[in-house]
């Protein structure tokens, strides 16, 4: 099992390139199933979930190649298998995203329920209920969603809970349905907009992306398209917080400032000087310690839940006291216990973390418990006194493309190992 060994202290300086957003790339890869001719995707991040999705599509008969510019060519003209088996779905819940495209284009789909997802749980129910509203005949049997439809038809469907993957699945299904589909209370996240843009590039007729009402007029066929996946706003935000915590100056390239309005506002409040350009964001702390801020998570365009752990880390070494209130997910403060082991003064009260900034954290062996929690531990380790060993970093590898090399390029002392053998990175 791999670990990260981080020696805290160096101020981060320099430039780093943001990767493409995994949460946009996964549905876009699934959407290639809808096209009758080849698609060409660029800016796809190097992450295990991406290769798992490629394996899933490959088993269905999608011909996938990666070219020398790391673009993915996906040709779904000869799909023969309309199933997503448990062995792949259990490793990646996003596999459910193939349900809508398979059903819409081929009239049948058999997709395993994600691991740990009880039949009848709300999020998967929304996918199923929406497809049923479009005329699909669906049964859940032996842990699989078995769906059939001659041709889906348009419908008005109100999602009683905002769900990103639910919105994406239904939007993809509706592109080939007969007539108009209206999705109410749709997710507004940039990754949903990116998928809509890709589908429109393939010939779909989707309007309202980015609002809570999506209108999709079904078409007979979709064809292949070239598309560049949008930058990862959470990765971008994480590197900016790393710069703020280390009192550094970092420019993130190949990103988009408008995706991060709420996060940039909080970083400015923390004392950061921020400049932005067409495809870059630069944060400069001018050597000063950040100030603690109050953060309240909510669906986009409000402050993202996927950035709250990073702001807990920032508040833990900031001047003053800040609160982080989590309203989107339960159980999202797993990182706090580990950060307390590093000397952070954080008190948990229900869905609120009260953080009193301390002068410095101290290194400790810690364990990553989930993706964003592990990112916050990396950030804490960057400013902790001594060497922090972070275990179970497979969590961080699911969301951060090449994190140790990117941090090292900014001056951090980070190395990956499967044993506890310290090797200092570039200073």
């Amino acid at each position, binding site marked *: 099992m791999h670990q990260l060994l981080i020696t805290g202290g160096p101020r981060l300086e320099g430039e780093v390139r943001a*990767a*493409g957003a995994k949460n946009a790339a996964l549905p876009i890869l699934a959407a290639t199933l809808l096209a009758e001719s080849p698609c060409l995707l660029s800016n*796809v991040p190097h992450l295990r979930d991406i290769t798992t999705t490629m394996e899933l599509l490959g088993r269905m008969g999608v011909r996938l190649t*990666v070219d*020398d*510019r790391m673009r993915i060519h996906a040709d779904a003209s000869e799909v023969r298998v309309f199933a997503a088996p448990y062995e792949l779905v259990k490793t990646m819940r996003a596999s459910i995203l193939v349900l809508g495209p398979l059903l819409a284009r081929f009239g049948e789909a058999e997709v395993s329920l994600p691991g740990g997802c009880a039949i009848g749980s709300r999020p998967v129910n929304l996918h199923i209920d929406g497809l049923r509203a479009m005329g699909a005949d669906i049964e859940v049997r032996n842990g699989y969603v078995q769906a059939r439809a001659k041709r889906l038809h348009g419908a008005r469907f109100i999602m009683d809970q905002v769900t990103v993957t639910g919105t994406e699945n239904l939007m993809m299904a509706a592109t080939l349905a007969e007539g108009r589909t209206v999705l109410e209370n749709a997710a507004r996240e940039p990754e949903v907009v990116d998928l809509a843009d890709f589908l429109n590039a393939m010939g779909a007729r989707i309007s309202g992306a980015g609002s809570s009402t999506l209108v999709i007029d079904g078409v007979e066929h979709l064809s292949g398209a070239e598309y560049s996946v949008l930058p990862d706003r959470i990765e971008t935000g994480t590197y900016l917080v790393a710069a703020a915590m280390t009192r550094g100056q970092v420019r993130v390239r190949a990103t988009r400032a408008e995706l991060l309005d709420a996060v940039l506002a909080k970083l400015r409040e923390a004392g950061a000087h921020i400049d932005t350009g067409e495809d870059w964001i630069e944060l400069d702390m001018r050597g000063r310690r950040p100030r603690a801020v109050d953060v309240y998570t909510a669906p986009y365009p409000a402050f993202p839940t996927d950035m709250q752990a990073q702001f807990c880390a920032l508040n833990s070494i900031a001047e003053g006291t800040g609160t982080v209130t989590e309203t989107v997910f339960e159980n999202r403060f797993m990182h706090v216990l580990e950060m307390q082991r590093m000397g952070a003064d954080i008190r948990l009260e229900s869905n609120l973390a009260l953080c009193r900034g301390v002068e410095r954290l101290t290194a400790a062996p810690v364990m990553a418990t989930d993706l964003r929690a592990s990112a916050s531990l990396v950030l804490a380790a960057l400013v902790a006194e001594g060497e922090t060993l972070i275990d179970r970093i497979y969590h961080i590898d699911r969301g951060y493309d090449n994190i140790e*090399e990117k941090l090292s390029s900014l001056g951090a002392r980070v190395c990956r190992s499967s044993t506890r053998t310290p090797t200092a990175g570039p200073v």
Partner: protein
Amino acid sequence: MARLIELGAGRLRLEGELNLQTVPALAREARHLFPGRQSRRAKQPAAATPLELDLSGVTQASSVAVALMLDWLVRARAAGTSLRILNWPPSMIRIARFSNLAELLDLPASGDQTLQ
């Protein structure tokens, strides 16, 4: 356009573009190098000769090229010989890493993986 040149004494050289159009023909052409698995009508039983493949002449490569290397490595092992691959083009190394195959191909697992 791609071609496999046999230089003798187990030394091989690949040249040109390795993609979906060119690789299937190369795969067919190379079967005789790995007798005993696919091609039972091998021209020359080269199984005992360790093979060395030079990729410095590869001008462009997609993931199909990486798949071909994996296939040849497996065939060489099955034929009771070894295949040493030299001068990996940077693009093939990136693709191998992207596909989580670097370790299997005995390539360094990390490096510049910036995607365009």
